[in-house]
């Protein structure tokens, strides 16, 4: 694995993230007008939708990184793909829980099984929940990286297809604010949503970089120790879901 400094620019990125998230919170609660239909509960939209979008984009990003691994064979791409999917899964669970809370407040139910948007998102999350067990089941690092990359590309391609299929569905109770033709929001709500979206995207990017920096440092430490002890650098470290 090539040595890369993922920590570069992390401080400014973190500060920018804090700035945007703080601005988003202020705008959500003190600037964006109340929704005429839903009232105050609509404020959940500003956290739930960006989390869901960033999560889905994270899965696609993981798939793109996996293409990088299959093309080059460089394990750094596998690590990037692994961390992207890992982070997207966390954001997806956040989106799922916040959406469920909104559903309870708005519909009176935590979950509605006949709603395509909800069920399709759950399927995507469950699909990517199998990514870690898949990795863990393969001990050989090269095979693990290769199989995981194929999985990440296939499932990453499934995400936009799934989105298009759901947008074509005719029966849904889930609000349709963002469609393929654009966002149907008043300007103040639109700006607030945009700031929230940027804040959550920056949070994803910051955490991704933090995780990459930590994994890279740990990997380099292990290699240094092996070099010092005169051990074989290519010998597997043992069973692990994460690239080592």
């Amino acid at each position, binding site marked *: 694995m090539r040595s890369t400094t993922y920590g570069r620019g992390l401080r400014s990125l973190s500060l920018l993230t804090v700035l945007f998230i703080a601005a988003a919170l*202020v705008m959500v*609660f*003190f*600037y964006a007008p*109340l929704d005429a239909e839903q*009232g*105050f*509960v609509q*404020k*959940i939209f500003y*956290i*739930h939708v960006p*989390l869901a979008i960033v999560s889905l984009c994270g899965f696609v990003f993981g798939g793109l990184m996996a293409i990088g691994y299959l093309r080059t064979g460089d394990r750094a791409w596998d690590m990037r793909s692994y961390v992207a999917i890992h982070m997207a899964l*966390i954001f997806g*669970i*956040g989106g799922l*829980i*916040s959406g469920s*809370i*909104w559903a*309870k*407040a708005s519909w009176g139910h935590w979950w509605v099984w006949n709603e395509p948007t909800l069920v399709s998102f759950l399927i995507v999350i469950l699909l990517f929940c199998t990514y870690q067990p898949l990795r863990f089941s393969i001990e050989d690092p090269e095979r693990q990286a290769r199989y995981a990359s194929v999985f990440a590309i296939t499932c990453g391609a499934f995400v936009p297809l799934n989105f298009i299929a759901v947008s074509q569905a005719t029966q849904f109770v889930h609000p349709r604010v963002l469609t393929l033709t654009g966002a149907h929001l008043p300007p103040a709500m639109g700006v607030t949503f945009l700031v929230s979206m940027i804040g959550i995207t920056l*949070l994803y990017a910051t*955490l991704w970089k*933090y*995780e990459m920096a*930590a994994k890279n*440092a*740990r990997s380099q*430490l292990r290699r*240094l*120790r092996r070099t*010092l*002890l005169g051990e074989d650098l290519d010998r597997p470290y043992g069973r692990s879901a994460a690239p080592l």
Partner: protein
Amino acid sequence: MSQLLASAPALPLGHAGKFVAAAYIVVFVIVLVYVAIMAIRAQRIERDLDQLQRDVEAARAGSERDSERSGSLL
């Protein structure tokens, strides 16, 4: 900032307030737990780095002892 807050309307929490608070708190807690896990990992890296430093010093001391011994034999 204070002007913005002063001109902002009071939040009409009502029935929805607890749900909105719950949604934001859940997300905040998820991020907080994740950052805490990252902090634990960073501590582990620091520990490993200390261990590596000790190993390097031990190896250096060992090689110095060996070179001194070979020098005295000559």
